[in-house]
């Protein structure tokens, strides 16, 4: 039996008096796209942050590709060693770096050689259809272009797991639809394990292999989409 790419076991997380996650257990198979649906404040983003290692669980375990990365109160593997690409809700594009420099920063951090860096950056820019934007800063890009840059940054390091935190929430309806189709195309091309957090059922319908609904820090239902 294949090991799950993501294996979350009975995870709990509390912030002051607010219980963000209350015994969440879920897994994702390699190359599977799991969409996590739920209203604001239900714990979706907290779950992604725990997987990425940006927070630690109070209880439970998190395993990635058969390796335990977090135990109660402890991060066992640092975020940058977990092989994760993350697209933040606010995109978090570094304002002082150009698109090219942002991608280069990721590859520098992974100690990728210069020649390989150039190849990977061109590959990512081409994949996201932003070939001509390498020299631009974030403020010189439209909303859709910024979205593509955030995705390119998440993908350029060849992560094993892609985490997307409501990546389309800031876009208008038309752009949202176009980017949704773009994400579907990327999914087909890359076949990468993906956890996608959203409150939009249309995102789930287009992208998900499996849809998990969350409510008040718990998983309320699981539906096979395809």
């Amino acid at each position, binding site marked *: 039996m294949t090991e799950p790419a993501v294996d979350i076991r009975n995870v709990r997380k509390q912030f002051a008096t607010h219980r963000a996650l209350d015994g969440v257990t879920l897994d994702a198979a390699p190359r599977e796209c799991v969409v996590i649906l739920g209203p604001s404040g239900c714990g979706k983003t907290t779950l992604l942050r725990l997987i*990425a*290692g*940006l*927070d*630690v669980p109070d209880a439970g375990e998190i395993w990635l590709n058969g390796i335990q990365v977090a135990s109660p109160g402890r*991060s066992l593997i*640092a*975020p*940058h*060693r*977990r092989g*994760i*690409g*993350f697209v*933040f809700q*606010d995109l*978090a594009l*570094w*304002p*002082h770096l150009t698109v090219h420099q942002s991608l280069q*920063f*990721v590859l520098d*951090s*992974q100690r990728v050689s210069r020649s390989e860096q150039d190849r990977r950056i061109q590959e990512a820019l081409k994949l996201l259809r932003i070939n001509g934007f390498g020299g631009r800063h974030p403020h010189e890009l439209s909303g859709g272009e910024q979205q593509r840059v955030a995705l390119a*940054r998440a993908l350029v*390091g060849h992560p094993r797991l892609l985490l997307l935190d409501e990546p389309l929430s800031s876009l208008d309806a038309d752009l949202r639809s176009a980017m949704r189709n773009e994400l579907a195309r990327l999914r087909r091309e890359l076949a990468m394990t993906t956890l996608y957090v959203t409150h939009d059922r249309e995102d789930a319908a287009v992208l998900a292999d499996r849809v998990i609904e969350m409510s008040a820090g718990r998983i309320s239902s699981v539906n096979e989409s395809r």
Partner: protein
Amino acid sequence: MWRWPSSRTIVVATAAVLFAACSLLPIAYLLTVPLRGWPIGGDILSLDARQQRLLWNTTLLGAGTAFLATVIGAPLGVALARVPLPGKALLRVALAVPALLPPYIVALAWTYLGGSRGLVASAIGHDLLSEWTYSLPAAVVVLSLVFYPLSMLATEVALRRIDGRLEEAGVLVASAAVVLRRITIPLAAPGILAAALIIFVLAVSEFGVPGLLRVRVYTTEVFTAFASLYDFTRAIVVALPLLLVSLTVAVVAVALVGERLVSARRVSGAPPVLLDGWRRPAGAAATCAVAIASGIPLMVLVAEALGAESLRAVFEGSGPAIVNSLLLATTGATAVVIVAAWLGYARARAGARVGRVADTLFIVVFAVPSTIVGVGLIGLWNRPGIFGAVYGTDAMFVLGYLARFIPVAVLAIAAAIRYVPMSHEEAASVSGAGWLRTMTHIVLPQIRLGLVTAWVIAFVLAFGELGVSILIAPPGEATLPIRIYTIIANTPPSHVAALALLQATVILIPVALLAGAVTVREAR
């Protein structure tokens, strides 16, 4: 997430240890003197007539300055925040200039204006103002002109943080003046009051102005006890009540301001222009403030300096002090920013409770009067062994700058770092960057202007520092402030004025460059 032994923990802990060693130990040394059996316990509690007079003068100086500086500064802050004045960015810088000049330079200018041989006496033919010039009320006026920008900027910041919708809801049912009085000012009141308390502490901590204007207060008494009477015990006895007052008031001020000290909260939308019709009176008042607080003192110094026979005569004997000051202020400001950058990061990313404790600590440390820091440093370092070897060197000046100015730089840098979203760091972290790499490539480049601002502030404060320097200066070593302060009595006023003018120029050049950079950046 803070884990041991991450590079973040090690770097921040190292900076914290340096801060504790430089800034906290001298104060702790003084506070623990009574516990070490020194024969001063009873003296602290019993206020003899002399002590009572000192306390009265010090309180009057602090309270009078806080009141007058607020009366001048708060309305100017309201004008900057709510009146559509032309050239506001430039006006703000011009209004803030007095706070950048060392207070004793402003006091010096006023003595050249109102002294018995001053410009006024020369113009009208008899001595009209000299008795008043060397008095407690004059010290209050001079310090108010120096510190009003703090009240002005605090008021402006407080008003800018008010959600415009609160005022818009008011102007639907009341006049602008009523909204200002009943809604805007009460909402901004904690910030204005906190600024007044900080001004109180800075005024009672000031050494140069009361020293020059011959007003006996605690700071001058500490200096006299140590430097003239060589009585270290008496210096500590006099220092302790002042230290306790300063610490108490600083704690109250921080409690009033709370998290707003380094808050990066941006209010959505432009605030309503409440006082559109007040352009002319507000513009006239601002122009008057610039003229009186900066224009007149600088013009007086220029007029006085023009009487010097030659530049060579002015700078003869002062060259080493000028070079020393430039080198030491540059070294000190750089050292301050290096330590403060990491502490500023830690402060910006700390939780509310830890942040509030840290803010209190930083403000309290900054509020400690300079002469007290000087006495503390001497007590710590003037002893046999390695400490003694350091004590006799210029390194003491840098230690003094670190002791006094790390807190200001930390708060300035923390405020800048608050504008860098946490997600930028997290994105770097999941991209494979360790914390140090994230700091050097992602966080620090985004706050370059904040770092430069902190450096300029530290440089300006260090270049004008007098209270600590005059106590800890090794034999034969002097900085420009020490040189100016010590030659006033036996050197032609034109020479002293020229040196003071040089000091003001060196301070205002980096400030003008920084203001230009900020203006260009805001215009983009």
